[in-house]
């Protein structure tokens, strides 16, 4: 089934691409929210991720299982180079319908605000990680990709995924201990590590 979907997408079948969106849009969205904490921005990341996926569909490997790792890999790249992605698709983004700012249901909003606080708190902890480690942590732990899938998604060897994840966990543990001891978390500057 997946193999066929892959072939159809590679061949430029737009219905297959619609299916891909239906199946994975929420996973991409969650990943983007976890990564950035801003739902409006995360929606743009969803659009950019699928536009990118469509652009590079010919490079999709014909065999393999779920397409989620592929999409999360693209999303990770979009998040890393958002300006570049936005530039590449600026015509398409211009046509993106404006977000409706008037919510439908009041209690939904309350729920969302509560969730937003929770997300913000969790993200603050992850900010202390180097970007590359944080990416692996998000993919492996929160998005629950296995090592091989995360390696595929990021285009790095499996060993690298393992070592980054282990470094992320060590750092998070240290931070938790330090926090217990009342020390302030000092975030690592973004981009100081590749």
């Amino acid at each position: 089934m997946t193999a066929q979907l892959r072939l159809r997408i590679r061949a430029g079948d737009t219905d297959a691409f619609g299916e891909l969106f239906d199946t994975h849009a929420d996973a991409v969205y969650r990943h983007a929210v976890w990564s950035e904490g801003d739902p409006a921005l995360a929606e743009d990341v969803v659009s950019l991720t699928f536009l990118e996926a469509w652009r590079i569909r010919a490079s999709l490997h014909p065999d393999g299982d779920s397409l989620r790792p592929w999409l999360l890999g693209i999303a990770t790249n979009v998040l890393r180079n958002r300006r570049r992605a936005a530039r590449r698709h600026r015509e398409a983004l211009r046509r993106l319908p404006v977000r409706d700012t008037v919510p439908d249901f009041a209690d939904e909003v309350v729920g969302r605000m509560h969730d937003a606080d929770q997300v913000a708190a969790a993200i603050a902890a992850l900010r202390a990680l180097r970007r590359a480690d944080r990416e692996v942590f998000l993919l492996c732990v929160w998005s629950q990709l296995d090592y091989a899938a995360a390696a595929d998604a990021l285009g790095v060897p499996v060993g690298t995924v393992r070592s980054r994840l282990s470094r992320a966990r060590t750092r998070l543990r240290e931070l938790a201990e330090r926090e217990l001891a009342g020390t302030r978390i000092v975030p690592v500057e973004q981009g100081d590590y590749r």
Partner: protein
Amino acid sequence: MSEPTAPQVPAIPTARRQALRQHLMNEVTRPARRPQRMLVLAPAAAVLAVVVAAGVIAQPWAPRSAPLIVPVHQGEHVGAPLLLNQMAVAAADTPPPGEGEYVYIRSRVAVAELGDGPARLGPAYEREIWIPRYERGDGLLRQPFLELPVIGVIPDRTTLPDMPPNAEVVDLPGDPDELLAKLHRERDERGRGSSRDGAAFTAIGDLLRESLLPPPTSATLYRAAARIAGVEVVRGVTDAAGRRGIAVARTEQGRRDEWIFDERTFEYLGERSYLVADTADGPAGTVLATAAVLRRAVVPERGQRP
């Protein structure tokens, strides 16, 4: 508990999700005009002129090089239809290509990314494309993968699935007025983008670039171009391989696109595109793209070089 657990993120609100999906489907089904074959002509030509002037043949356009600025010469509008009709007559004399299932084109290209201050040309690279000659089918593109976002495998060979064949270009209307009318209709169906004349000029440029045309087809394209308002001749221009030529050009929205031909044989050499007015993308003369066709041939197999 040392590890933060995944916070709950509500799904995308239904209405918004629908809107995003609809937008995406519109984008992917949008009738792209020969998407795989477009060079995205942006800023390459001026670079060459500078290089040639300096007598240097090395690559001066490193990724972070300064913008390439070329002198903007006055175009000559009156001479353009004359030149194009002369070219049409000369085209009728060229011998037709041989037999083979694929059309092969190798070119040298450099383009600039726009939207981030003054446009700077990216590094020049070689691009090879195999286009099915007679029937719709898979083509092949070989070019270095220049983008940084590396997703898994980096393809330097990309299959171009279900590509329109070269024959589709050959089968265009043989009457220049009919051809122009067809290009105008296509522009009107898209309903956006450049003016009707600008769109027709761009469409003909796309047809000339990566294709192998029998002389009568080239002649029709030149005659059709001669009828486009605003077409001009620019002399003393240089393609991406440093070859001098004469350009058929058109300017729209501060940007001039040139097709460059050998001044004596009228062989298509390449093209370039640059700003003719000061804009956010750079001052007048800033090169947005430059290209040179190095080889056009017919080959028996996809991926095989002549």
